[in-house]
Structures are given as structure tokens and as C-alpha cells.
């Protein structure tokens, strides 16, 4: 048990990043890559160790650890602590992070051609930032890691991307920075009003409680909305989503995988941590409105995805659509919908990473992502087509695959939810279920136009997937299959947290 340390988990990627600058690596590309992959595999194993010692029955924070500097906490005068800890949701996100980072590093082999040392150190910095976001037990610490993630992402998109990558990277940073400033305002107000109401100078997630009636309701709703703006940019919720297609299209494949699989989940994670856990009463008020946004997210972006001709844009818009399902599940305010939402977060993380990998593999070989130019790839690349089929079916929500469980639970939860909204929630759910048809439409169109349809002579001599690409796709597909058949493996971990959160939220 002693070797399981949350600080080692979070900060070891930073150590790895600094090791890359040691003279041992010089500019030896192969050695840098192998070291990075080896480190990421060890990190994944280490994070699985946390799963082994995790006790889901206990709803307290596991592996709690606080860093102190010369006997004082991080910012003592404001009561801020540099404290880390895990509950079920954090643990799942941490394992997903380690898993996707390993795969992204494997996928980097064929995508990254220059500045290797810089690239891998930035990836590791990003990993530390993301792990910090998921494990932080203090609002300001959460915010610090949330902002820290921008610097490596800026370089990763801007330096190794294609197209107008510099502009896209800047757009990504500015959008997120603006959103996070609103979030900061919300955090500051929450911190201050918690102090003013209870006289307790703290920003710890577990000690802040605003459920008591003394906390003014207007303030709760204001804070909740300010926080929501920050998370809505990241998630993204529809009017604030325009950075995402640009960033995805111009980012290199491994970065796209990380962006879709983990960075979008930060928004949903923040929504759970702040809006639902800390401000439950305010969330009950904004949930019906948020549900309308979720519906727009689901249907509107699915329709846009159908109109796209660029493969990566289709996958990017389908990501937004899938995040709409997550929001719908969170807004249903019952155990089924909620566990469905979290399952959908994990499922979408795995599936979208696979889809971006797929598009990346096609792009490397054909140098195009336009559906018009592609066609008949199935003859030259039968193995890739097999994987593509499974990934597309999982994305559409075929039973026994991972995508089905999340969507089914969300819709079930939303349909059974007992709310008083202007339009009954059952109607929302029925409308949202149309995503099953819409997603089938754009996914099968993608499959059809790429792998079947017109057979072009020029694509007959393409190489099928290489070993490292096979490993990535196989790992993702086996995860999809395993958790599609055995979803309780995930749901059992989050069950205690869910009941803990929902005891204040249930109507």
C-alpha cells in the first residue's frame, strides 16, 4: 500500500518530461519514443494499482494527500490547500487518461516527424495537468491545473498541426481562457460567500457546503451560471463550440485523440464536481434550461455532422453531439441517468479516440480527408475496415458494444425522470432519441463513402495498418467490447459517489 502515492501518480510525468532533456537522449528519436512509451505503460500499470486498492463501498476520499511548503499549506491566508484525492469518478478519469495517453504516444510514431524532445515533454506536461484536474481536492488547485493544460495544448496544436494550426491553437486558448475567467469569478464568489456565510476560510471540495438556507439563492444561481460558462466552453455546449472543429481538424492525430477523449471530459467532470456536488439547489433550478441546451447539442450538431465532407470534422461534430447525451444524463437527476452519463463519458473517450486514430491512419496514407476523394479503401485495407466497422457501430450504439450502454442508460434515466418543466421531460427524451437515427446516418455515410462506394484506382496500393496502429485500435476495440458486455465493472466503481451526490439532488 505504501508504494501507491497519488503525488507520484500526478507528478511522475513531469519527471519523465525533464528526463527527456538529459544528455542520454541527445536527439535520438527512437530512444526518446521508446522511453516515452515505456514510461506511459508503467504509468498505466501504476494507475491500475490505484484501482486494485480502491474501496468503492467507502464514499470518502481515497488516497488523500496534501503538499505543504515549510509547514504552511499552499496559500494559507486564503485557506487554500494543495491537496489531492480520488473518488470513483476521479479514478475512472485517471485510468482513462493514462490509457489514452499510452495509445496516443504509440500513435505518435507515424504522425510526429520533428522536434521530438519538445513534443514528448509537452505531452507529459499535459498529462500532469489533466491528472491534476481530476485529482485536485481544492477549487483553486483545480483551476490552476485547468489553466496549466492550455500551455502544452497551445504548443501541441500550433507546432505539429496542419492547415491553419497556429490560428486554431490561438482560438482554442483564447476561448478556453475566456471561459475559465468566468469560472474563476464563480470560484472566487463561491469561496468568499462560503466564508461570509459560515466564517470558514476554505476552498476544499469536501468542506464547502452551500446546501444550508443561509446562503442566498440568487448568489448560488449566479455562481452556478458563471461556473457553467467555463465548463460549457470546454465541453462544449452549442453556442460556445466553434473552437472545437478548428482545433480538431488542425491538431495532429494523437493530440486530437487526447482532446476528444479527455479534454472534453474535463468540462463534464467540472460540472459534476462544482455545479452538482457543491451547488445542488442551484443545479435543480438550471437543470431544465440546461436540458434544452443538451437537446440542441445532440440534434443540431448531429445534423451539422451529416452535412460535413471532411472526415475529421464529422468525428469532431459527433463528439459534441455525444457530449450532449452526457449533459442530458446529468440533468435527469436520477441514478440511472447519472451513471449513464458517466459511462457515456468513458465510452465516448474510448470510441472517439479510435475514430480519430482511424481518420489519422487514412490521412497519412492518402493525404486527404475529403470524402469525395476517398472510396473503396476496403479492398486495400481490409483490417482497417474491420476496426472501422466496430468503432462506427459502437458510436451509433449497437448493443453489446460500449456506446449502447451509456446511451441506453441516459435515455432510460431521462425518460423516468420526474421533473416539472414547461415541456414534459419525456418529450425531450423522445426527441433526443432521434440521435440514434442521425448518428447512424452520418456514421454509415462515412463508412460507405470511405470504404465502399467508388473504387478509385489510385487507392489500390495502400498499405494496410501497421503493427503499432493495430495495437492502438485493438486495445480500443477490446475495451469497447469488454465494457459493452460487462458495464457493471465501471458502474460499481462510481455507485457510492453517485448516491452521495444525488442525495441532495433527487427530486
Amino acid at each position, binding site marked *: 500500500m505504501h508504494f501507491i502515492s497519488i503525488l507520484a501518480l500526478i507528478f511522475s510525468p513531469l519527471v519523465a518530461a525533464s528526463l527527456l532533456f538529459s544528455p542520454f537522449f541527445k536527439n535520438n528519436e527512437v530512444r526518446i519514443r521508446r522511453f516515452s512509451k515505456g514510461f506511459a505503460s508503467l504509468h498505466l500499470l501504476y494507475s491500475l494499482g490505484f484501482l486494485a486498492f480502491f474501496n468503492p463501498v467507502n464514499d470518502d476520499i481515497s488516497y488523500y494527500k496534501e503538499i505543504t511548503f515549510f509547514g504552511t499549506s499552499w496559500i494559507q*491566508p486564503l485557506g487554500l490547500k494543495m491537496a489531492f484525492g480520488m473518488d470513483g469518478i476521479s479514478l475512472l478519469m485517471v485510468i482513462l487518461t493514462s490509457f489514452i495517453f499510452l495509445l496516443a504516444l504509440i500513435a505518435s510514431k507515424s504522425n510526429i516527424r520533428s522536434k521530438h524532445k519538445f513534443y514528448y515533454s509537452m505531452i507529459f506536461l499535459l498529462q500532469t495537468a489533466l491528472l491534476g484536474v481530476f485529482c485536485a481536492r481544492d477549487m483553486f488547485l483545480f483551476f490552476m491545473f485547468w*489553466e496549466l493544460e492550455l*500551455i502544452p495544448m497551445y504548443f501541441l496544436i500550433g507546432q505539429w498541426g496542419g492547415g491553419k494550426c497556429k490560428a486554431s491553437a*490561438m482560438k482554442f486558448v483564447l476561448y478556453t481562457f*475566456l471561459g475559465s475567467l468566468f469560472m*474563476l469569478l464563480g470560484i*472566487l464568489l463561491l469561496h*468568499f460567500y462560503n466564508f461570509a456565510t459560515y466564517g470558514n476560510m476554505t476552498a476544499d471540495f469536501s468542506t464547502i457546503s452551500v446546501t444550508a438556507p443561509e446562503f442566498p439563492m440568487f448568489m448560488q444561481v449566479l455562481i452556478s451560471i458563471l461556473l457553467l460558462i467555463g465548463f460549457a466552453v470546454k465541453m462544449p455546449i452549442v453556442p460556445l463550440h466553434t473552437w472545437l472543429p478548428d482545433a480538431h481538424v488542425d491538431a495532429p492525430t494523437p493530440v486530437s485523440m487526447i482532446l476528444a477523449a479527455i479534454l472534453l471530459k474535463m468540462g463534464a467532470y467540472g460540472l459534476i464536481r462544482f455545479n452538482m456536488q457543491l451547488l445542488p439547489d442551484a443545479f435543480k433550478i438550471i437543470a431544465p434550461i440546461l436540458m434544452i441546451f443538451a437537446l440542441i447539442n445532440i440534434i443540431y450538431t448531429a445534423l451539422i455532422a451529416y452535412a460535413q465532407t471532411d472526415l475529421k470534422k464529422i468525428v469532431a461534430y459527433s463528439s459534441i453531439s455525444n457530449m450532449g447525451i452526457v449533459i442530458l444524463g446529468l440533468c435527469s437527476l436520477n441514478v440511472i441517468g447519472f451513471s449513464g452519463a458517466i459511462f457515456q463519458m468513458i465510452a465516448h473517450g474510448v470510441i472517439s479516440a479510435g475514430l480519430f486514430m482511424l481518420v489519422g491512419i487514412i490521412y497519412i496514407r492518402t493525404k486527404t480527408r475529403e470524402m469525395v476523394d476517398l472510396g473503396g479503401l476496403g479492398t486495400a485495407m481490409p483490417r482497417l475496415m474491420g476496426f472501422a466497422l466496430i468503432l462506427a457501430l459502437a458510436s451509433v450504439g449497437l448493443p453489446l458494444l460500449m456506446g449502447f450502454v451509456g446511451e441506453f442508460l441516459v435515455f432510460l434515466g431521462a425518460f423516468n425522470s420526474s421533473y416539472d418543466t414547461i415541456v414534459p421531460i419525456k418529450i425531450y427524451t423522445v426527441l433526443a432519441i432521434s440521435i440514434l437515427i442521425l448518428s447512424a446516418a452520418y456514421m454509415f455515410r462515412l463508412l460507405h463513402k470511405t470504404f465502399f462506394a467508388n473504387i478509385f484506382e489510385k487507392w489500390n496500393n495502400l498499405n494496410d495498418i501497421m503493427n503499432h496502429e493495430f495495437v492502438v485500435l485493438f486495445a480500443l476495440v477490446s475495451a469497447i467490447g469488454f465494457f459493452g458486455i460487462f458495464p457493471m465493472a465501471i458502474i460499481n466503481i462510481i455507485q457510492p459517489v453517485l448516491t452521495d451526490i444525488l442525495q441532495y439532488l433527487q427530486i
Partner: protein
Amino acid sequence: MEFLNNLKNIMLPEIIIILFIFIQIILSMILDLKHYKLSKWITVLGIFLATSMCTKVQIDPLYSGFKNAIISDNYTIFFKVLILVSSFFIVFLTKRTITTRRGNAFQFNSLILTAILGALTLVSSNDFITMFISMETLTFALFFLIAFERGHVSKEATFKYLIISAIASAVFLFGVSYLYGITGFFNFTSIYDYFIEKNPTLLYSMATIMITCGLAFKLGVIPFANWILDIYEGASTSVVTFLSIIPKVAMFGILARLLVFPLSYSFELTFVLVTISVVTAIWANGLAIRQTNIKRLLACSSSANAAYVLFAAALVSVFNLSTVLFYLIAYIFMNIGVFAAVIILESSEFSNYLYEFKNFAYTNPVFTLCFATCILGLAGFPITAGFISKVYLFSAIARSGLIFLPFLVILMFTIVISVYYYLRVVKLMFEKSDVVASEVIAHKTSSAIVILYCCATITIVLGICPSKIIELCQLIAYNV
């Protein structure tokens, strides 16, 4: 006898500085002009002695000497140490200014010391006359420092600075005369006591607004902000470093005291200052987007940073004051770091234009890392002092009342703009280009390099464990 006692008790740092000013002037008459190093080390010694004399100053209990014209407490000594430490750093950056000008090093350093003297007495002054004299001492030295660079650009800059400074002083004095007319006092404490019994009139608000507008000149905020771009471009970089830190720190020191004591009865003033600050933030950040010269860009940035601090200082409270102090500490080190980098570039024959920054990341990785740390610190990214200071400053503003929230939201929008132009500088350093020759940075500026590394380290350390410094700031703010 009382005069000598006062001198002994609270004026020791100033006396040391005056002594070294005379030493410099005498040496300039008897020695050859080229003794750059000797002059520098004499200045450094003077500043060091003055800093160490700060421990001999009586601060607790509060000491007011010279018929209550000058006071000394924790707060003034904090600012004195801050001014002396930052000028200690800046003196090491002045080499290039003197050597390229073939100027008289002793004259230059005596001017620097005079400006420091003005700043030191400014923060500890307790009436408007002392304050005005110290302010003018500081400004007069700066006229000559700005004009020290060769060419007509610096002369033009000096002239502009002179005229705007004169107008600002006139506005300031006008306000002071009104205040004297109402109360019959120049002394801060007396004016504060006067209004405890009598209600402030509209004329009082008018006078306070005029006084703060006059002081706005030194801070580089609207209405007297338009000098800042040309003067930053025209003056030599080490002087600009001095200009962007010492007058600003001293002015915030005295402004915060003014806002706490004699000007604290005017509600209108708070709103005027908040509006000024927001307008300045919009103006400066908007202007910075189009700048291609790093010095002009930093001028906008310093103006914008002054606006953020002014916002927190305007909403007077003990907590706000502590955030202002911490912000100033963080800002000083990041700013010196950035200017040190600019000076290193200048002495390696790079111009100040941003497009020349290409390729640095590949030719000088450590330099780029430190430079980028300071720039990202100014932009407010985490694990730098800039992040903590911004969060801390905003936490103060956010708890000052819901009525200021819309202003704060506007301020945040302008900060997003500032992220754009700061990141552009960093981006250019990582860009590859074949056109610009990738020169290695010269090692003849070793002192500037050491200072850059120091500042980058301090920026990171303050960003990770700021607890002790924040506690210090709170201690000082609570004892004003």
C-alpha cells in the same frame, strides 16, 4: 536637536543615498569618464548599504518626524525595501546604455540614485508638500535619464514626458489647493481628522478626483497615458526598466495611503477610479494587439497592469491592500525579467521588432525558457507568480461588492486580449525561419543573463509557494 533625532531615527536610507549621490558627482569631476565598472559597484554598494540601513529605521510604533511631514511604519519600510531591491536589480542592466552612449557613468548613476531618493521620500511622505517635492525630484531625474540615449527620438520622448508631467503636476496642485482651501491643512492625518466631524462637500470630491488624475500620469493610466508608448520606445531599455518599476511602485505606495486616509470620504472617487482603470485596460490591451515592437508592447502591458492594480486599490479595504502589495512584488520580478531579456537581445545586435524573435527556441533554449516564463507570468498562466497574483487580486475585487462585478467582467475580457499578444511573442520564438540568421546570444551581457535567470526562478517559486509572501503582505496591510 529634534531635527537630528528625526534624521537618525527614520532617514538613514535616504542619507546613505544622498551621500552616494555626492560621491558619484565628486568622482565624475576628478576621474576619467570611462570608469563604468567602478561607478556601477559604487551604486550597488550605496543601494546595499541603504537597504541594510532599513533595519535601523524605527517602524514600530509608528514614528512621525519633521513636524509630521514624514512618517515611518511597516508599510513605508516595505515599499522602501521593494524600491531598493528592484533598483539593485536594475543597476546591473545599465551597462549597455552607458557604453554605447560613451556617456559619463558617474552622472548616469547619480541620476539613478536621485530618482531612488525621490521614490524613497515619496512613499514615506505624510503631507502634500513633501509628496510634491519628492515626486518632482523623481521626475526631474527621469527627464535626464530618458534623454540619455543618443538620437532625436529620445529627445522627443523627453520633451513629451516633460510637458505631460507639467500638466499632470498642475492638475495635481490644483486639486491640492482646493483641498487646502476646504480644510486649511496639507497634512494627510489632519485632513483625515478634519472630515471625521464635518461632511465632505462636492468640492472635496472634485479635489480628490483632480489629485488622483494628476497621479495617474506616473502610473501611465488614462487620462495621462498617451506618453507611455513613445517614451518606452525612445528611451534606452535600462531606463525604461527603471521607469516602468520605480515610479510606479512608489506611486502606488503613496496612492494607497492617500486613498486610505485623506481621500477616503469620496464615493465618487471610487467610481471614477474604477472607470479609469477599466477604460485604461481596454485602451492598453487593445492598442497592444497591433504592436510589432516589443518595447511598445511592454509599454501597453505595463499600463494595463497598472490598471488592474488601480482597480483593487480603488476599492479600499485591508484585504485589497494586501493583494495590491503582492501584485506589485510579482509584477516587479516578471517585468525586470522581460526587460533583462530585451536588453540581452539588444546587446546581441537584435532589433526590438518581434519578427526577429524567430528561431530562439532552437538556438537558445534556456534563454527562451526563462523569457517565456516571464512573459507567460505577465499573461497570468499557472505555476508563475502572475497566476497567483491575478487570482489573489481578483479575489479581492470580487468580494468588494456585487456592484463592481460588471466592471470586473469587462476587465476579464481585456485580459483575454492580453493573453493573445503575450502568446504571440512566445509563439514567434518557437517559429522556424530561414530568413533570420540564428545567432547565438552573446556572453558579454552576463549580468543581464544572471538577472533574467534569477527573475524567472523567483517567478516560478512565487507561483508555487506564495504563502509566506502573502502572509507578509497581509501583515503589512493590517498594520497601516
